[in-house]
């Protein structure tokens, strides 16, 4: 029996395997987090020339 199996229970290994697919979801969420928008940025919406903060 290897050192790895001796130290970690079989139950823990199974739980880790089940959780692995969810990690990619977390990673995607972190990747797509929008940068903090500049409230003074000038935007055009429906023909209006506005500050981003006007849209709040």
């Amino acid at each position, binding site marked *: 029996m290897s050192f790895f199996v001796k130290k970690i229970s079989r139950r823990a290994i199974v739980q880790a395997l089940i959780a692995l697919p969810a990690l990619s979801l977390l990673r995607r969420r972190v990747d797509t987090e929008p940068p903090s928008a500049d409230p003074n940025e*000038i935007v*055009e*919406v*429906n*023909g*209006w*020339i*506005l*500050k981003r903060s*006007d*849209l*709040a």
Partner: protein
Amino acid sequence: MIFDSYETFKAANFTAKVCILGSGPAGITIARKLGAAGISVVVLEAGSREFSDDSQDFYRGSTVGDPYFDLDITRLRFMGGSSNHWAGWCRVLDKQDFEPKAWAPDTGWPISRADIDPFLPEVHDILDLPDFRPDVPISDDIRWVQLIKSPAVRFGEKFADELDKSRNIAVVLNTYATELAGDGRRVTGAKLWSNGQDAGVFSAEYFIPCTGGLENSRLLLWSNQRSNGGVVPNAAALGRYWMEHPTFEGGNAILTDYSEFEVDATNEAFFSPSLAAMERLQIMNFGIRLIETPYAGIKSVIADLACTAPDAAEWLAYQLSQNLRCAAQLYVTWEQAPQASNQIELSKTDVDHAGVPRIELHWKKSALERRTLLEGLRLFGTTLIQKDLGRVRMADWIVNGQDYPTNEETAGHHHMGGTRMGTDVTRSVVDANCKVHGMDNLYVGGSSVFCTSGECNPTTTITALACRLGDHLSKIITV
């Protein structure tokens, strides 16, 4: 002296060194300058002292390309010319308007603003104008500019007594030149039409067509055709580079404080781009006219804004409840890029009562101008935000790239180009002194000599150029 017909003029045995065609702002100004210098002048005016349908009929024509006004209503053919329906807006072309722009072909004049500045005091007297105030930069991109609403001088009315009493100036009404004859060096005579019939040939030492920004080209095109190139020997640019000031409602603005803007007596203010902004965006000059919006107009602006920026709409509604002026309509006028294809041609099928072909005007707005309109509004809107002065909403048709509306004013009734000033004979018709290239005694007055149009109404610059031409001729013509 004012004569009602060529017959009565002939009977008076008045001898004129200079023959001016047309009694609008350019014609009368040049005549007064020459008369004051002791030079004898005859001014031939096609119409009479009053408007008449019969006279206007000579101005009918057709337009090819973009929609334009009927050619017989966009100008007036009687004493005083189109000053008779002038609204009175005054401003001189800016220094930057005279300079060439690398991003717009065929821009730049052979003279600078400094060449007409010495004549501005005279112009102010003629047009009853106070002094212009310097521009005020609102940002690096936008400047407040002053257009003065003058009393709109009707040249025929204002100067009728003076002209009637003049011993050096004879105004002959109901008389005009259907064509000039020339030998490639000089104009040798003018074929006249007076009171509905052929009136023979008139001779003078100098001829100066001042018949307007459409008619100058028509007269010279027809004359040149009849004399086999003897009137405008270098005719490649004749009739070409014609320009207007397209004008459309560009949208609305809401203003944090209307009193931040210096408005004139009619609650209007004007804004134009800096040269740096034009250069950076590679656009033409433009003028944004800000007009206070009536109450019903504000409500629709609020309703529209509420869908996009509720807080801003709430603020606007509150301002309205306080009876504050906080919204405005934005009208945009812009400079047309000179294009050889915008041109006056002679109709091949339609002639007037004197047998002269009518005008066929080819006129189209360019993509560069469309970009000028859009970027101009963006510059203004951005400036309002940066200076915390307000917000701009651009009209849907501009944002969506749709066709120009057909239910608006379209343009300013400003007819410019056709006999433009320049040094290259293939791209211009007159030189820096308004003398037709290659001709010794033929000059042109009026906005047809404009190389570029700037964004402002042309009458003030027309009058300044006329003072300059009158001054120039008074120095070279011996009494």
